[in-house]
């Protein structure tokens, strides 16, 4: 082979690479100290001190302002000292989080890989934001799990069409037994085991959907969205409830073995509509409606237990520097003979005390008289270094939606360094 030619090519590549790849690396280190404490015996510590390290590589190909392609990969290492004391091999979990490649082809963005999708307009109750499974380890603060998918977004003038194709299914990570709620009890000495029956990888169980979103020049800006998604439930089909802010309920079918249950995951169709409007007065209004039918029941007249909807109305306004977000959710489930309804209201207030400190309060109320409150405080110690304190209190009688978890009050201090 012509050596000078090879060398010249290699040199050209070396010279070209820095100009065609604009790559950055960022990372964060997070250390948590969290504890459950019950309301009667505050500080009965169940200590936990997990450590989390995340590294992220991302870059653009071509002109950074108008790239031809973009990529991102995030690796997370999680170490749980409590688990390490009993089962050291299970204490360290390495997981690939978001890891995707995206090509910009004219007005179309094509991406493939582990991705997180955020659909809808509202913040807390998000009935149309269904693409990613959730990790409910701390159910009041669920985290989306990146899903492997193909995604295409058409960016038009004032509108976008977002299509996703999710070939493989992942279920939600369920919370621990302490979150199974008062309605779910097992005989003494018997622990829960799930006989998981996940959807088989087949064309019938492929998940897909799309979202149309348009921005209109009405008032001080209006956004509207229409969503359709054919998915498979990420929680076991239709008996325990757990204390997430939107009170997820899971119904399990027992087997002959005590404590063993079959977890089945239904297919569903979701149709959703959402929107927001910014008014000149400073008020922001948001709404979101998701209607779901399960197990291929009739879309317009579902069988009992196979039709559900959630409607959310939200308002946001800043009073004297205190940002206030209120969200009301009305959940409906087709029943026999009576339909069931659940009404929940959540209020979030937050303010920046100064450039370093911010205070946030989250409160939720259910019409059964139960609720939760969560004061949160964060302080930026230095550039990229932040300390946060978060506490959750569950209030109400032991048979109420949130009150049943009043043994699960929780406090957490975390320190995060991002660079």
């Amino acid at each position: 082979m012509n050596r000078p030619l090879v060398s010249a090519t290699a040199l050209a590549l070396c010279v070209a690479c820095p100009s065609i790849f604009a790559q950055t690396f960022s990372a964060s280190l997070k250390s948590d100290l969290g504890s459950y404490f019950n309301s009667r015996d505050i500080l009965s510590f169940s200590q936990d001190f997990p450590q989390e390290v995340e590294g992220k590589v991302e870059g653009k190909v071509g002109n950074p302002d108008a790239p031809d392609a973009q990529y991102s990969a995030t690796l997370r290492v999680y170490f749980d000292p409590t688990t390490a004391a009993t089962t050291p091999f299970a204490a360290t979990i390495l997981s690939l989080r978001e890891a995707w490649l995206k090509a910009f082809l004219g007005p179309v963005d094509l991406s493939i890989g582990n991705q997180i999708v955020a659909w809808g307009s509202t913040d807390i109750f998000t009935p149309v934001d269904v693409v990613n499974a959730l990790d409910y380890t701390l159910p009041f603060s669920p985290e989306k799990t990146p899903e492997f998918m193909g995604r295409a977004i058409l960016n038009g003038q004032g509108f976008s069409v977002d299509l996703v194709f999710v070939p493989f299914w992942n279920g939600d990570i369920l919370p621990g037994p302490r979150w199974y709620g008062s309605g779910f009890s097992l005989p003494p000495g018997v622990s829960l085991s799930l006989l998981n029956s996940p959807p088989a990888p087949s064309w019938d169980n492929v998940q897909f959907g799309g979202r149309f979103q348009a921005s209109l020049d009405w008032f001080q800006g209006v956004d509207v969205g229409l969503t359709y998604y054919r998915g498979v439930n990420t929680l076991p089909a239709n008996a325990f409830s757990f204390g997430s802010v939107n009170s997820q309920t899971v119904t399990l079918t027992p087997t002959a073995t005590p404590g063993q249950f079959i977890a089945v995951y239904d297919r569903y169709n979701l149709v959703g509509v959402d929107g927001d409007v910014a008014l000149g007065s400073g008020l922001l209004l948001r709404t979101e409606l998701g209607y779901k039918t399960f197990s291929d029941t009739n879309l317009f007249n579902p069988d009992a237990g196979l039709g559900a909807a959630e409607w959310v109305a939200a308002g946001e306004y800043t009073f004297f520097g205190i940002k206030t977000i209120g969200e009301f959710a009305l959940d409906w489930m087709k029943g026999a003979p009576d339909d069931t309804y659940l009404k929940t209201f959540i209020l979030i207030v937050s303010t920046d005390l100064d450039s370093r400190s911010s205070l946030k309060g989250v409160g939720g109320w259910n019409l059964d008289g139960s609720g939760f409150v969560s004061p949160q405080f964060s302080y930026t110690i230095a550039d990229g270094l932040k300390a946060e304190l978060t506490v959750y209190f569950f209030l109400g009688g032991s048979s109420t939606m949130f009150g049943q978890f009043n043994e699960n009050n929780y406090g957490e201090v975390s320190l995060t360094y991002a660079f």
Partner: protein
Amino acid sequence: MSNLSVLTRIASISLFIGAGAAAQAQNLTGQEVMDRYFHNPKPKTAVMNISMVISKNGKSLSRTMTAWSMGDNAKGEIERKVIKFLAPGDIKGSGFLTEKKLDGSTESQLWLPAMGKVRRLSSGPSDQDQAFFGSDFTNRDIGGFIKADFIYELKSFSDNLYTVEARPKQAMGYELLVYTIDAKDFLNTKIEYFKNGQLARSQTITYVSVGAYNLPSNILMTAASGSSTEMKLSDYKVDQAFGDQIFTERFLKQ
């Protein structure tokens, strides 16, 4: 004619012209002063790097950003700005898009990667007068003002500086802004913000010549509470051809 007399005549003419200009300058109304200020030549597009230092009680936090701007209200165009954060790590990737429309209303959107959604901010004081990423600047300061935002009144002219009071036509976080405008080039060197009759913040600006334009190189915002934020703008690239695609959600997320 001797050389001296020529010089004397030139000097006399210069003095006459200078005195005339000063007399003309002093006769301008507040509206006219601000008209000249807002009609200063602006680049069609600009890209710049910004470093921001927020200081209080001897401690500081920093942010670095890249900003893109386009449009000139004085020419009947919508003014658009996009800012992307490069550092520190906890806010890296965040972005802010704002459009100042011809009627003075503002459309702003915020991209916070951790949230995964672009959030619309309201046009009213409740959102526009909030601190911009913890700094002493507000979202409204970043979007900038247009001439139609205020009613102007000239308060004084001395040392070649105009002092113009600007009262907002629509509710904003301040009832009065006092501009100091240099009569030489009609650039504002200082803005004082009054709230409830008290000086709440003051901003001083220095400029750098970039091609045919005088553009801000340093903006210091000092709050009465004792904190201050210094913004240094550098590496200007002006009049580059970039289209509307910069001022979109798509670009904000990239």
